[in-house]
């Protein structure tokens, strides 16, 4: 049994890992040069409680199931996760019934411990919240996670259990050859599969439509974010929502597990599914609306901006299951709360596929993944031991985030490992701090060239075509 998974975002990697519990050959095809290069690298990182989704929807079901899995999953796979709780803030008395309605809906979805707090009580706990806030829905089960940290953890564990990751493989055709489904890639390579699992994010409709007569349509919904310096992280400890709008959950002020605070996202439907440019208007909107929640926000604290695209299926719900055509399983339209839902979705997908193909469980599956060493978070004793074992942990490369050469080398040597500056950044946080790589970029280029055995002029930011330098000084 050969399974080809298209897409190495959080869904593709989670599905790969859960399928690797079974006796099958699994290949993941990814068009970029690393995992977590699309939606999974640029979203709010919120593990939603589950009160937003319409009761009875797939979104509601998998959100609540997924949320409950995070404590044990983060320990098992060694990624950062924290239940920081969330508030949905309400700015006028008239809207309080909407808030109450949300609480009722949450109850129906199975969300526990929801409470409505007064503005005063909220400001006791979150003292930077606007005094215009009159009430809020408190959801203590809401959490935060590094979306790419989680994706990488899934991918590494999948690889450790035999999943093969193939990068720079943009799927350009799907067809049948006998009983097999044939996946053709832009570079001319072909993969035969008994089953193709479509985890292609914003391109999930394209993949489905290559094989299936029942067409799907995904709209890329752009969300722009701003990241604040760690020195401004006191502005929010819980995730702060405003009452939801038609297009989503509105603008958040949300802490990250890395210790920063993020503002965003906006929600604008776009035609170009690969365009992650930020816009003046979008950034201004994100900032202005976030100021409604926390009026004291300072634009001076912003250290970077980015855009993510959500895969919005026109039906409005997740589409998970065997496609009406042979040899294809769709996991598409996984927009928010997709990150939260991903662990539960993956378990469901693996179990359905294993039943359909009578796959046996493997006895040698290893569920645990060792988290990479994180020098900045270690005690002095742990640091001393690490340096004694490998002196490269005594060389600080990224001064803003205190990331050592040892951690960078580890990130490159893992499977699947970092191949470029962005890959290093997502795995170690090097270059993610207040100087945004100003000091450490040349040094990380040297380390990448040395470890990958390539020329330093071939080192890229995010795959071929994004070389940092154009050549040597003559």
């Amino acid at each position, binding site marked *: 049994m050969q399974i080809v998974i298209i897409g190495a975002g959080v869904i593709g990697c989670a599905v790969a890992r859960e399928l690797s519990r079974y006796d099958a050959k699994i290949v993941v095809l990814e068009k970029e040069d690393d995992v977590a290069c699309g939606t999974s690298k640029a979203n709010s990182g919120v593990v939603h409680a589950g009160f937003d989704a319409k009761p009875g929807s797939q979104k509601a079901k998998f959100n609540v199931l997924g949320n409950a899995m995070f404590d044990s999953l983060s320990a098992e796979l060694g990624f950062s996760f924290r239940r920081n709780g969330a508030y949905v803030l309400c700015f006028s008395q008239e809207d309080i019934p909407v808030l109450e309605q949300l609480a009722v809906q949450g109850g129906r979805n199975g969300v526990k411990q929801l409470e409505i707090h007064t503005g005063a009580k909220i400001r006791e706990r979150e003292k930077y919240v606007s005094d215009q806030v009159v009430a809020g829905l408190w959801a203590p089960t809401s959490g935060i996670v590094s979306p790419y940290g989680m994706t990488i953890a899934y991918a590494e564990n999948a690889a450790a259990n035999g999943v093969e990751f193939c990068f720079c493989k943009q799927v350009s055709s799907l067809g049948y050859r006998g009983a097999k489904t044939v996946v053709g890639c832009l570079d001319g390579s072909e993969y035969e599969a008994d089953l193709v699992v479509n985890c292609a994010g914003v391109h999930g409709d394209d993949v489905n439509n290559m094989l299936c007569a029942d067409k799907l349509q995904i709209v890329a919904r752009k969300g722009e974010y701003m*990241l604040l310096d760690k*020195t401004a992280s006191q502005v929010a400890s819980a995730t702060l929502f405003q009452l939801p709008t038609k297009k989503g959950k509105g603008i958040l002020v949300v802490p990250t597990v890395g210790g920063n605070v993020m503002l965003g996202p906006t929600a604008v439907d776009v035609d170009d599914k*690969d365009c*992650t*440019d*930020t*816009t*003046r208007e*979008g*950034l201004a909107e994100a900032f202005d609306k976030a100021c409604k929640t926390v009026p004291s926000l300072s*634009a*001076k604290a*912003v*250290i*970077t*901006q*980015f855009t993510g695209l959500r895969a919005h299926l026109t039906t409005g719900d997740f589409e998970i299951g065997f496609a009406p055509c042979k040899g294809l399983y769709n996991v598409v339209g996984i927009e928010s709360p997709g990150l939260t839902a991903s662990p539960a979705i993956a378990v469901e997908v693996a179990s359905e596929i294993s039943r359909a193909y009578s796959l046996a469980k493997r006895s040698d599956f290893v569920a645990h993944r060792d988290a990479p060493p994180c020098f900045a978070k270690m005690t*002095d004793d742990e*640091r*001393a031991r690490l*340096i*004694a074992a490998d*002196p*490269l942990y*005594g*060389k*600080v490369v990224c*001064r*803003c985030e*205190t990331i050592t050469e040892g951690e960078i080398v580890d990130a490159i040597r893992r499977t699947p490992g970092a191949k470029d500056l962005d890959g290093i950044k997502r795995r170690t946080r090097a270059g993610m701090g*207040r*100087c*945004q*790589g*100003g*000091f450490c*970029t*040349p040094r990380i280029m*040297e380390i990448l060239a040395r470890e990958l055995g390539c020329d*330093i*002029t071939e080192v*890229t*930011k*995010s*795959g*071929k*075509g*994004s*070389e*940092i*330098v*154009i*050549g*040597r*000084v*003559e």
Partner: protein
Amino acid sequence: MMDKNLIIVGGGPAGLAAAKAAYDAGERDILILEREDRAGGILNQCIHNGFGLHTFKEELTGPEYAARYEREVAARGIEIKTGTTVLSIADKTVACVNAEDGLTHYRAKAIVLACGCRERPRGAINIAGCRAAGVFSAGTAQKLINIDGLMPGKEVVILGSGDIGLIMARRMTFQGAKVKAVIELMPYSSGLNRNIVQCLQDFDIPLRFSHTVVAINGKKRVSSVVVAAVDEKLRPIAGTEEEIACDTLLLSVGLLPENEIAKTYGIELSPVTGGAIVDDALMTSKEGVFACGNVLHVHDLVDFVSEESERAGASAAAYIARGGELSDCVAIGAKDGVRYAVPQLVRRGGEGALGFKMRVGKVAKDVKIVLECDGREVASRRRQIVTPGEMETLTLTAAQAQILRGAKEAVIRLAEV
């Protein structure tokens, strides 16, 4: 835990000068901690000339200027640990790490912070657009070219006409790149006229004032930037956008003192300079902890960094030798065109002459810099021109300084002559 009388954080021009002066003031137990593999700091990559006219009365390149101080430090046998990063300071204990010694804690009697500054990144100025490769801070590009011998790009737009931006325009041109424009948000340049003439005009590189970059385009690599004129409130004017094809955008949009360690240590910082608030011995709000050079406030000339740092080093040595009671301070405010003056505090119990360094907010001609104590002019200095790009100084005689030390209120301001 090891004991050291004086720990100097940073082995650039500030740290080296502080070490030299501390030694010459009698201190022998000194350790410099430098995170790079060699001392000299940012001067190592500033290969252009123009350094040292005040200090050495000759024009040196950055590496030559650094080497002079390195030789002074070496001749005194002062210990310097390179490749060593300071992780934290607490209770005058410095935690640092390197590959050879691992994690080390030094308990110091005095500490001099001389860790320099960093460049403001793209994110801090909120330029919209793509995340493609090809956007560099000017200093990163300078390091790539001058130290690593790597070429960042061949068609370049530079945002910011401070000296680093101007110097990089010439450097890239020398290496065969086409610098298409230097874009400056303000209606004037904060760079030296000499650099405008010799780095831009010599090569017919256009300098466009009151413009900014509003978008960066490209998929994997920058393909163009969009520039636009700005109004008097520095907001882009709709309809003035113009696209310039390029593969590289260099940002030279300001320097920020690198004070994260000071912040976590609880040292009081000035919101104007981004550096510590210091007294006339350059001591911060933590007793026995001194600051000098670009970590205190961003300087225009390295000569002034050296001068200030020698004062900090000598003060630290004196503090170790004598310790002693600290007297009250008079605070020196800044107004009417003066953005800040350093030191911000003067000890009432001190003696002798005093010097202040300051920056103005905008260009002014035929003015005087005035120190007023309790509403009375105590000292002044006439200036034909003052500009935001150049640091100004005001020196007080011992007698004037005594008046200041006895004053209730003091302020430095610009006045018309």
